[in-house]
């Protein structure tokens, strides 16, 4: 796979290292001259010094043959233009952009960038998960954030302990799997829940708090 990364600092370096280790053909574009030199010594990659949103620079970076372009600079506008030029001028099939303003996520999607992520939003979500729900792990958004996937561990005082699944009043959420003492159980309507059970819960984005309320009680 041929990957172009536009960015700087540690993020570009470690991500570059990761891609090289995976065997990808990597081209890195950075706007600082000294950094370009240093990176070219440290990474098994082509390193260019220049403005990654400039068509001539992208062409030099081999954009015509690239499979993916990642734009990870601190400037949203530079990331957007780099992705658009890569896509429209050079036909790069997949473009990935970092946005700093979370509100720009929707904008970039609308303007044709294939994958958009906001570090602010990801960190915010992580912190919220860590602080809000001590017994709930890995609230992973899937299907573009419409669906949540989480693992919850039943405590002795969780309301769901002793109940069978069919008696739990879950709305827009299901228990996909019960892990009991390391063994996976396929849940049935009459499966009785026990303290220490780990449940894999799939829910609609807006419904997970209500579902955890039913399973775990007050979770704040």
């Amino acid at each position: 796979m041929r990957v172009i990364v536009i960015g700087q600092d540690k993020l570009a370096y470690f991500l570059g290292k990761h891609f090289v280790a995976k065997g990808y053909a990597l081209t890195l574009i950075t706007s600082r001259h000294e950094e370009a030199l240093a990176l070219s010594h440290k990474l098994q990659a082509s390193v260019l010094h220049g403005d990654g949103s400039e068509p001539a620079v992208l062409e030099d970076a081999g954009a015509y043959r690239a499979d993916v372009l990642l734009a990870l600079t601190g400037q949203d506008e530079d990331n957007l233009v780099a992705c658009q030029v890569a896509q429209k001028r050079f036909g790069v099939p997949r473009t990935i952009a970092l946005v700093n303003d979370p509100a720009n996520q929707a904008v970039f999607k609308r303007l044709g960038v294939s994958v958009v992520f906001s570090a602010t939003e990801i960190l915010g979500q992580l912190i919220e998960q860590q602080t809000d729900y001590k017994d709930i792990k890995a609230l992973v958004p899937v299907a573009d954030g419409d669906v949540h996937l989480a693992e919850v561990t039943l405590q002795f005082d969780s309301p769901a302990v002793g109940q069978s699944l069919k008696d739990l009043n879950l709305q827009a959420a299901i228990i996909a799997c019960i892990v009991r003492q390391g063994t996976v159980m396929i849940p049935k309507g009459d499966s009785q829940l026990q303290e220490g059970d780990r449940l894999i819960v799939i829910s609609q984005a807006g419904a997970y708090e209500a579902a955890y309320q039913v399973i775990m009680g007050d979770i704040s």
Partner: protein
Amino acid sequence: MAKTQEMVVVGCGRLGSLLASHLSNAGHNVVIVDAREAAFDQLSAEFSGFTVVGDATEMGVLEQSRIHRADCLLAVTDQDNINLMVAQVARTMFEVSTVIARVYDPTREAIYKEFGIDTISPTQLSADALLNILHQSPLVMP
């Protein structure tokens, strides 16, 4: 452009301040946006519009500049990519009917023209004007 229009000018440099002052004098309702408050010192004394301090690539700042009511947006900061992004946001997200971006880099300008963003390239305009003068001078060009 006879009747009063709602206009947003992004970037209060030499061009932005000149445009905003002119449009305001012509009776239009102008909001001008710039990241630096000191930039507004360049506006003429007669400028009667509003100023918004902030980075126009931030949605919140554009919303503050009453973009949802705007008939026209001119993106004239000194950075091509900011102008291109703001112009596209204005057109796609806020459906502003007239949107023009200043783009210095002619190759970038050509790409965005292809997908329908109205652009003005000072570099291209200057080159055309200069070549035009040279053409009329028998000493330089045949």
